């Protein structure tokens, strides 16, 4: 039986949204009362226990309250109601390099930042060499940090944070700092934390990262805790349902911005279709059609159509430009039109993707029309259900050999 590292009991938190832009003593005295405000509940009756030695992920869309909950745990915000207790020493890594003074040297800033994060002088003295070593900026440690590159700055800040070595560490999406080598070091440090039985609470909406990183997870929607449990289950549930909410981030791009091209043709909109019906989400394995609607202003000979799918993280997963040899389109003539791209079985795992589209013409260096992230949609769990990443490969296990 493990014991709890953090206990959140019946926590609610509201924020005041003031109707007057700037509050002043003058206005308060003249109007003879407090400023008018609306109350917004960011957290509603949250009960949560985080077990010692586990890495716990808090998931949720923007505005779901996950960062508010983390800040309440970190004592930065005080809940209106309920209480949060924790064992041992707690440190929050919501930002790296908090309170760095640009004019002071790296050395001074290590002491300053360490002090802000709650370390004593003796403790920083003991860890100083290790911090500098971890950051990899030892040659510049006596230079003012204003001369540092942004990478060096972040690495030094991260190195101090990670050396606080608390019993409970709260992290807010700061895992992706520095280059690959530095990220590996950070991952190794978190793994070491885990081995040493420290508790880590991490907030993120990078679902796949959380899947490999967390033991347990919980997810929030509009300030309510929707589910808690083993990370795999909760993340699947979240990926399925979170994308279900008619939210700001899915499928609401009705008119397109950011056209680039010579302009003979403009792309009007995209449609995502399954079984001939327009949808805002699809499932792994679905037969999907992407329909591009366009308006032609001047004739274009030998047109080529291009489609790309871009992952939430900004990485292009796939792209296809029609080739004159495989499928020669006839000359486009003025008027409106549409073209379909057919995907027989969608090989993408659950996540949020956007469609990029373009029109070009054979033999012309410059594109005719291009729009980026014109339509955003979510992919939810379907068949097959593989473990992680963005793609499904219909892979299987076989040939186990023993002894």
């Amino acid at each position, binding site marked *: 039986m493990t014991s709890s590292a953090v206990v959140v009991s019946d926590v609610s938190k509201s924020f005041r949204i003031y109707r007057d832009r700037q509050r002043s003593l003058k206005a308060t005295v003249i109007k003879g009362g407090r400023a008018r405000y609306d109350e917004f509940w960011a957290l509603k009756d949250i009960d949560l226990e985080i077990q010692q030695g586990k890495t716990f992920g808090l998931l949720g869309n923007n505005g779901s309250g996950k960062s508010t909950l983390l800040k309440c745990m*970190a004592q*930065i915000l005080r809940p209106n109601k309920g209480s949060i207790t924790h064992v041992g020493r707690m440190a929050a890594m919501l930002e790296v390099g908090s309170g760095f003074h640009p*004019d002071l040297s790296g050395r*001074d800033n290590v002491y*300053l930042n360490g*002090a*802000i994060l709650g370390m004593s002088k003796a403790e920083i003295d003991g860890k100083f060499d290790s911090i500098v070593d971890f950051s990899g900026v030892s040659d510049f440690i006596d230079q003012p940090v204003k001369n540092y590159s942004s990478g060096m700055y972040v690495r030094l800040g991260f190195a101090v944070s990670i050396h606080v070595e608390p019993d409970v560490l709260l992290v807010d999406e700061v895992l992706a700092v520095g280059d690959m080598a530095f990220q590996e070091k950070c991952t190794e440090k978190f793994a070491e934390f885990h081995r040493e039985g420290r508790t880590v609470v991490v907030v993120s909406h990078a679902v796949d990262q959380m899947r490999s990183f967390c033991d347990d997870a919980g997810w929030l929607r509009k300030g309510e805790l929707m589910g808690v449990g083993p990370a795999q289950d909760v993340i699947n549930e979240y990926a399925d349902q979170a994308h279900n909410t008619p939210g700001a981030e899915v499928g609401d791009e009705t008119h397109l911005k950011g056209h680039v091209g010579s302009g003979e043709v403009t792309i009007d909109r995209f449609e995502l279709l399954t079984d001939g019906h327009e949808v805002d989400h699809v499932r792994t394995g679905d037969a999907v059609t992407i329909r591009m609607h366009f308006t032609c202003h001047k004739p274009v000979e030998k047109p080529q159509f291009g489609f790309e799918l871009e992952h939430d993280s900004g990485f292009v997963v796939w792209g296809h430009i029609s080739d004159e040899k495989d499928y020669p389109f006839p000359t486009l003539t003025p008027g409106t039109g549409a073209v379909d791209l057919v995907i027989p079985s969608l090989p993408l795992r659950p996540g949020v993707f956007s469609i990029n589209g373009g029109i070009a013409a054979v033999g012309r260096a410059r594109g005719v029309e291009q729009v980026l992230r014109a339509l955003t949609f979510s992919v939810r769990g379907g068949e097959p259900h593989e473990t992680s990443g963005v793609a499904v490969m219909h892979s299987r296990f076989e040939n186990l050999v023993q002894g």
Partner: protein
Amino acid sequence: MALDRARTSSLRESLVKNPTLNLLANLTLREIKGQYKKSVLGRAWSLLNPLANIAVYSLVFGILVRAEPPLGTNSGLKSFALWIACGIIPWGFLATGTSVGRGALTDNAALLTKVYFPRFVLPTSTILALASTFVTELAALTLFMGLAGAGPRVLLRLPVLIPIVILNTAFVLGVSLVLSIGMVYFGDIQHIWGIFLQLWLYASGIVLPLAYVQQAQDKYHFPFVMIFQLNPGYQFVEAYRNVLYDFAVPPLSRWLVMLVWAVVAMGIGALVFRKFSAQIVEEL
């Protein structure tokens, strides 16, 4: 002797081992080092500003208005410029301390919203850093007074300055604690405080001796002198003048008034700060 050593070592140990004291020390040093590194002249600037004020007020009140400087009791000094100098520098600590101190929370919003630490450390380190600047200014002033005719005798009175600086710092900190919380809720406090400081300067007898206030009281039958006596600004500044201009120890009544003001300001400051400091982050 052995006991003494034990006590010092435990004090040093707590400085080394206590995170809050370490933070206070580091933030104070950050302020001080930041002041030094911002310009080539570094701290010299902090001396040039009062020098300019001394020159202006001496010119306006000493030469143009021909105000009569009071006679230094033990020192026998009678110089308007020196009398102004002994008032302007302590006044500068009151005015700058409360003006910079009131922004201690709002200016550090980025830090407050990202890290938890005992919030009182911010205004306290700001005031401690300014107090250290003030002590350098006082040292320069003392040297100047010695050279200007007082001679080495002024050095004998220096220990008396220490408790005055401590009480004064406590008073400025108390006021800053309240103002820094107020600034979080009401942005216009900075303008209101700026206007208040203008009035407070004249109500503290920094630029005109009390004799003129007495004349006004006799003429208009309004208790101006009592207002001056109740004003902590007047009492603190007069205490410095007692030491540096008169070469005297401030009277017991003045010590009591300073003590009461320091305790009241710190008491109210601590109460207000304790009540509000946990909930300021959401207002920033």
